[in-house]
């Protein structure tokens, strides 16, 4: 089934808003001593935050496939943002980067395992988000139509 324009807009919106946690966690994993606040390379905390980051995609999306695709999208956007953070000395402070290939390969090698965690946690979060949304809707329906629900 094709995505409608509204679905795509929703996916884009969530991809942008869910990206900063991914970017921060990837950057913090590489530089735990200078980032603020630091998660201290605690993989459990990273995984829990990944689940939390995935919840909005399940909560705000009406379709499961859209929610899953949104998770992959925001992980990609977030990781790209982490690379931008990682390039800060050379983008903002105009310092000279001597061996760019080695520099970026090092970042990728250290953080590639996190991508799996982000996606896995994101999928789990999307499922939880959808469950929360359904639960909220049931509650709303019960409050709106108390007579019908009682019967």
């Amino acid at each position: 089934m094709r995505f409608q324009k509204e679905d795509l807009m929703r996916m884009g919106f969530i991809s942008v808003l869910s990206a900063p946690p991914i970017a921060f966690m990837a950057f913090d994993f590489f530089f735990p001593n200078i980032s603020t606040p630091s998660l201290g390379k605690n993989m459990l905390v990273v995984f829990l935050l990944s689940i939390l980051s995935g919840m909005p995609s399940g909560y705000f999306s009406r379709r499961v496939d859209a929610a899953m695709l949104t998770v992959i999208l925001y992980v990609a956007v977030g990781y790209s943002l982490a690379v931008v953070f990682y390039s800060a000395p050379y983008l903002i402070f105009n310092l000279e980067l001597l061996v760019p290939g080695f520099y970026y390969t090092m970042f990728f090698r250290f953080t590639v395992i996190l991508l799996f965690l982000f996606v896995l946690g994101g999928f789990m979060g999307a499922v939880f988000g959808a469950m929360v949304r359904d639960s909220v809707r049931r509650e709303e329906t019960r409050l709106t139509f108390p007579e019908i629900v009682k019967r």
Partner: protein
Amino acid sequence: MVSIKDLRNHWFSTSMYLAFFLFFLVAGIVSALTYGTVVRVQEQVGLESASYDAQLLDNGSVEIAFSITLSNPSRYTLHLSTTTWTVRVVNITGEDRRSITLATEYIGPTIGLTVPARSDRTFDFATIVSDPSLLSELQGFINYSSSLGHHYTLSTIPYEHEFAAIAWIGEFRHDYVREGYLNDLVTIDERYVSGEGQ
């Protein structure tokens, strides 16, 4: 875009989501700026105003003095780990010893010296070479140089001064065992050798 009606209906979830987004966005930007600043500190900190002198004393000994300034224009305090000063005479004609080491001064990590932010610290060292065996080696160097057409005295020998300072930037953690690059990131390693680059 997600419709305003949607967001209004889920105002609590939306507010929490925006707070979550903003928190990590700000944390990411602050961390990236800290990273940039720390990398720039590596370029800003430097050794400057090196000066050295040698004087012949009345009793035949030689007094050698050395002074250098560690400049820290950054906004972080530098915690000095070690500083070393070595003065030697390089004697490339010697078969056994390529240099005659006259004095070494080492300040270890327990001293706790700091260079506060946006300030300089000057290190002054001095030694008196009075050991007869060292003085005779220096005299031998003078005699040999003289045979090659270079006329030196004990006070005009080209003494080579080597100074090294290792310091940690600010209060950043620097005791990682496996992740050596994290220690390197917040470490200043400055070296000076007289005559180099001249």
